[in-house]
Every structure is written in C-alpha cells, then in structure tokens.
C-alpha cells in the first residue's frame, strides 16, 4: 500500500485535493443557504424597474410617486445615477425619493393595523 502511494503520489494527491474541494464547496453551499441575505441595498446602477421587480411592486407607481421619468418619457430605462446626473443632484437624493415611494406602496410589517 505504501509502495503504491509512493509510486503514484501525484495521482493520489490530486484525488485527495479533488475530494477536499468537494467538501469545501459543499460546506460553502450550506453556508450560503443558511446565510441567504435579505434585500440587496439600493445601488446607483439599478433602474426603478429592477428595484420594483425585487420588491414585487409596480415600477411605474414608484416613478409616479417619486416624480421620476418613466422609460417611455426618458426614451429608455435609466439608472438611478443617470436620473441624478440629468437632474444635477446627488444620487442619494434619488435613493431617498425611491425609498419614500416604496414605503408608501409597501408599508413596513409593523404599520399593518388590519
């Protein structure tokens, strides 16, 4: 057995590394599944459509409440950063407008008094 291991050390080592990688990735999959994050934070590259899809809301309602241009008005879907640049305001201002619209369309769980 020792002789075999010595003669084929590279093959045995490669097999051991492959098995270790199988275990490593299995543990990582388990870790990802256990620590699945909540909503992705808003980012300048997102469009209102992208944010609305994530939250299950109507993007045009967000546009209307936040006073943002619809893709039809702008000619194409714009990122939050593009909207901010066109208006000459910091992108955070657009974030706040979208967040306020989202709050209006989807009250947080504690606000539901039914």
């Amino acid at each position, binding site marked *: 057995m020792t002789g*075999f291991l010595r003669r*084929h050390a590279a*093959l*045995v080592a*490669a*097999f051991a590394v*492959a*098995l270790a*990688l*199988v275990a*490593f*990735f*299995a543990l*990582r*999959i388990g870790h*990802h*599944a256990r620590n*699945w*994050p909540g*909503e*992705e934070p808003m*980012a*300048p*590259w997102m*469009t209102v*459509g*992208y*944010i*609305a*899809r*994530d*939250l299950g809301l109507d*993007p045009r309602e967000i546009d209307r409440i936040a006073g943002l241009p619809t*893709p039809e008005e702008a000619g*194409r*879907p*714009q*990122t939050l*950063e*593009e909207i901010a640049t066109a208006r000459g305001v910091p992108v955070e201002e657009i974030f706040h407008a979208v967040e306020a619209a989202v709050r209006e369309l989807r009250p947080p769980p504690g606000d539901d008094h039914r």
Partner: protein
Amino acid sequence: MTDWLLALVPTYGPWLLALCTFGSSLMLPIPSSVLVLAAGGFVAAGDLSATTTAGAVLAGVVAGDQGGFQLGRCGGARLIERLAAKAPPVGRATALLSRHGGLAVFLSRWLFSPLGPYVTLAAGAARLGWLSFTLWDLAGAAVWVAIWLGLGYGFTGNLAAASNLAVSTLGFIAAGVAALGLGWWLVATIRAERASRRPGP
C-alpha cells in the same frame, strides 16, 4: 469597476454584453458572469429583451472563442510541435485533445469556465476540427448563458448571493467530476498493477 460596468448594462444593453463576453473569451479580465447575471435581473425587470440579450451574450462568447481558436491554430500549432519534440507528453495530450476535444470544449465553456479561453487556444493548436469545435462551443456557451442569465432572472435583488451560490455549485460539480475521474483512474491503476503481478499461465 464592476459597479461602473453594471451601470452601463441597462444603457448599452446587448451591445455592451456582446463586447464584454467577447473580451473575456479572449482572456481580458472582465467580470462577464456578473454582468450577465445583472442582465438577467434587467430582463426580469422588463428593461432588456430576453431574446436580444441572450442572443448578444451568446454571439459575444462564440465570436471571442472563434478568435481564440484561430489564434491557437495560427500561433499555437507551431509552438506545440516544438514542445512535443522535446516533451512527448505534450504530443500525446495534443493528440488526445484533437480526438476527444469536443467534450473538453463543451465542459470548459460552463463547468470549468475559468479554463475556457485556454482550452479554446489549445483546441485550435491541437487542430480540432472547426465544425466540431464550433458546435461543442455553441452548446457549452448556451448552457453558460442559460445558467447566468437564468440565475439573474430568478434572483433579481440578490445578485451577489446568487453569484456566490452559483460559483460554489459549479465548483462542487467540477470538483465532483474531477474526483470521480481521478478515483476511476486510481482504481484502474490498482487493477492494472494487480493484474501485472499475477503469475502468467
């Protein structure tokens, strides 16, 4: 750089995706899988068309691979001939790739995707048939596009988590395939040694 590129996805859409996947197929360090993942999210949001996006990504990958394959054919063949004259295993590996390279091209397109550009170059250098290469490459690229675009579509809003999960799952499958192959090789080696030790009739 990724955020800056992501911001360009809804603006330049299919053109940007085709250009980026073309570049990364030629070993340029572009985070194509993240871009395609985000594109899946924009498709789900209705900002991009599914067919145009999938078509552009596929076209970019396949065009890039054609470039890599031709580069391998022109420059690599001579280099491999020279190496094979000094190291016989190189010649044997090249012969193996030219005979059974299709499957390697297919798997390296999606399962072992970091190896993709290298296998493409090697396939060209090993003189794998152009039609065989193109068909296997197209099939592998289609699987890659379906995985990353589909994940982006399904996991809009959790792209980073989806990307990590996809990388881990593909890593798990790739390591599993490698472990099975190496295990089979080990068993075959043990059997061959036992058979050679057995006294003849």
